[in-house]
């Protein structure tokens, strides 16, 4: 379903249209009930860098795994360099000149680089000759593409950037003319990513065709020649990179305008529901992960905590929800004061009408092996209303679960389905239903929309605002700047465990917040006394 472009040539390899390296037609693949790829067609011109973008779960990786022979397609044809090929396993793909750099490296840790590169492509039954041949070939590849890796280093001792080069070398060693990279920059530092793109450029100059799977639009704009957009297992658009922009691609990826303007009235803050004073939480090494943090959350407002992941947000949330203790300072929920000497546990926190939607729904939010109805009462399972005599009454719980599912649009609304089998968005809605339904005074929310599809995001945001309007105090912790800016009435910025800035929600702009998150914002208006004090 490629949208028509100015690629006039229908015949591959026609005289004036560039030769086609890969042509997939009508590829479909289902895993059980999930249709991962549906009638996908794609043409990749030889010697170009071809990007494939899409949200998590759009089917990009599945499509490439089919091309590499990891899965077999249910339907469709594959043509490589104009010839139809059957790719039943990775061996067939390698024979067709396809190499793949997987998201999780396919290396043997206890092997040297040399052993990893030659494994599966040895030149004979004995290793001696293979080692000599592989060493020579590695040297050649190094001089040709500038891919330097010490051939005798153990894979377990190399940094990820180098390991990725080993993967590329593996593919080239097998004579790959088509290189697929699946989310290659996810594990790299920006500098390593920069080097990778230089290498890809060198490969392209040598005539290698590169398919780059990513969800980072900046990379697409920087390095690709053509780009393909996938959504819900289907190919929805094809563009020349020079003729599109990030905004259009983003819209295509999610299927509509990105920034949904959430209708929300001004906050009407009331009494203080949660006080945090000089809170410090240390890790097992004694390092302060949350460092002398103080703030308040009032009823009827959403306070957002923005920050780059790993700056103490998770630890703050765990301390507030009673999962971990605190080392210094105090937390006050209503009239209960929590100090290092008077700790609290999650059960008591819940009884104080403080609900918690954890950051990691699969590890902390649900028991994925439980049916939905059991997951729908976790943390509230001692509730008298759910019991019958000594025991939990499944009928009562299931009835309650169905009503929660209907109210919160959890699909399918079937309480007997295993929690793991709901999509991310529906799992999150189920947790939200469980926590919000009891009208908590305080709601602690971590990353409410991580890995959630766009429709569910909107719904979840609506629920949080509704709770606020009913007088709930909401503390929102999110690494998604858009989310914090959309929802929060006040934004606190966290950096290295400290709160480094506070901004009113309607006055925030992305650039300023970004600088604050990197603690690089210096031109603070001098309303703050501390700034002049520090610079003096």
């Amino acid at each position, binding site marked *: 379903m490629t949208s028509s472009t100015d690629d006039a040539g229908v015949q591959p390899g026609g005289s004036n249209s560039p030769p086609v390296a890969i042509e997939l037609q009508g590829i479909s693949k289902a*895993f059980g009930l999930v249709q991962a790829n549906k009638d996908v067609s794609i043409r990749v011109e030889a010697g170009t860098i071809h990007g494939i973008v899409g949200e998590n779960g759009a089917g990009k990786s599945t499509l490439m795994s089919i091309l*590499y*022979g*990891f*899965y077999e397609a249910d339907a469709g044809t594959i043509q490589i360099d104009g010839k139809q090929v059957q790719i039943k*396993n*990775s*061996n*067939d*793909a*390698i*024979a067709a000149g396809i190499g*793949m750099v*997987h998201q*999780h490296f*396919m*290396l*043997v*840790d*206890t*092997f040297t680089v040399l*052993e*990893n590169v*030659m*494994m*599966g*492509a*040895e030149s*004979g*039954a*004995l*290793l*001696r000759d*293979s080692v000599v041949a592989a060493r020579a070939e590695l040297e050649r590849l190094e001089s040709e593409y500038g891919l330097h890796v010490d051939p005798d280093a153990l894979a377990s001792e190399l940094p990820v950037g180098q390991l990725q080069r080993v993967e590329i070398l*593996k593919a080239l060693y097998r004579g790959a003319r088509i290189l697929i990279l699946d989310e290659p920059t996810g594990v790299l530092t920006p500098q390593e990513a920069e080097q990778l793109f230089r290498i890809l450029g060198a490969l392209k100059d040598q005539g290698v065709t590169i398919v780059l799977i990513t969800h980072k639009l900046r990379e697409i704009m920087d390095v690709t020649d053509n780009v393909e957009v996938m959504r819900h297992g289907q190919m929805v658009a094809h563009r020349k990179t020079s003729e599109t922009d990030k905004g259009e691609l983003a819209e295509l990826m999610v299927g509509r305008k990105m920034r949904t303007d959430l209708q929300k009235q001004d906050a009407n803050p009331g009494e203080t529901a949660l006080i945090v004073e000089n809170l410090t939480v240390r890790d097992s090494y004694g390092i302060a992960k949350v460092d002398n943090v103080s703030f308040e959350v009032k009823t009827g407002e959403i306070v957002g905590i923005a920050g780059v992941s790993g700056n103490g947000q998770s630890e703050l949330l765990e301390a507030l929800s009673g999962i971990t203790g605190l080392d210094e300072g105090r937390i006050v929920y209503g009239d209960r004061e929590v100090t290092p000497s008077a700790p609290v546990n999650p059960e008591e926190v819940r009884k104080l009408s403080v609900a918690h939607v954890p950051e990691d729904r699969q590890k902390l939010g649900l028991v994925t092996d439980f049916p939905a109805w059991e997951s729908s009462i976790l943390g509230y399972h001692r509730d008298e209303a759910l019991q019958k005599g000594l025991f939990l009454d499944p009928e009562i719980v299931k009835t309650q679960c169905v009503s929660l599912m209907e109210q919160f649009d959890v699909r399918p609304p079937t309480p007997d389905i295993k929690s793991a089998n709901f999509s991310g968005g529906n799992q999150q809605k189920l947790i939200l239903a469980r926590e919000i339904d009891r009208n908590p005074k305080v709601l602690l929310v971590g990353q409410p929309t991580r890995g959630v599809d766009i429709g569910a995001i909107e719904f979840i945001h609506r629920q949080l605002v509704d709770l606020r309007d009913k007088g709930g105090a909401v503390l929102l912790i999110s690494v998604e700047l858009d989310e914090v800016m959309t929802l929060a009435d006040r934004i606190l910025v966290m950096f290295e465990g400290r709160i480094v800035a506070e901004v009113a929600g309607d006055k925030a702009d992305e650039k300023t917040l970004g600088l604050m998150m990197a603690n690089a914002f210096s031109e603070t208006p001098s309303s703050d006394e501390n700034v002049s004090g520090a610079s003096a």
Partner: protein
Amino acid sequence: MEDAFVFITLTANATVRVATPLILCAMAGLFSERSGIIDISLEGKMLGGAFMAASVSYATDSAWLGLMAAIMFSMVLAMLHGFACITHNGNQVVSGVALNMLMSGLTVVMGIAWFSRGGQTPGVSPDGRFLPINLPFAEALSDVPIIGTFYSGFLSGHNALVYLAFLAVPATWWVVYRTRFGLRLRAVGENPHAVDTAGISVAWLRYRGLLICGGLTGVAGAYLSIAQNASFVREMSAGQGYIALAAMIFGKWRPVPAMLACLMFGLLDAIAIRLQGVVVPGIGEVPVQLIQALPYVLTVVLLAGFIGKSVAPKAIGVPYVKER
């Protein structure tokens, strides 16, 4: 001086005799576990091999046919283990324990059915056994001090399977570290995904590892029933498969250290036999049972305390499934 030398030679010979099946089984286990399949069924395969060797040797009066039968039968058992663990992603420990129990019972049942001797096989004739081989000039050199005695008293005079066992160690080392198959075998035990994406069949590689494993346990079984002894006796493997497994882990899944561990267990056993009936001053005669228990006690102690960091192949025990 001469007495001490005789004592050492005798103990060394006893050590070798006891260590032979252990070494064969340890090498067998190494091929299986390096491919990522836990093999607790060395014991059962060896027992089955012992039974087949004795039965066929008795029927044909040929030690070599007995050996072949043992190898084939143990390979079939290994394939059963592979079918459960590789093809059907079963639990490797459960499958191994099942094989051990199956062989413990089935050898006796078949023994009763075929020979009606309470589960034993009849005695095998000398033609049906592997008898000690005298190396060339062993007689002539026996009078030469030290070297001659060592040659004729220790190196010479073992049966063919003993020499085979000690050849199996460098052979295993060579296959595992110097051949393409060995490289892939080590890779599949560490990261089967890497092997699969390199275009190699994980299942076929593991099946081949298990086939070699089965063959070697078959040789070990034949050693028990038609070399060391002259018939099959129920439960004659007596836990040696487990000891061999322990020795292999003790040797950190490497051929030479595994062999050394087997020799150590053999030595303990040989000393235990020597100590029987010896009166220790102040204590009196040491009970036989205590001495017999000594190797096992030491196994536990050594495994628990002195093995150091032993890192198993990373993918061991985990069935290979292409993840979604």
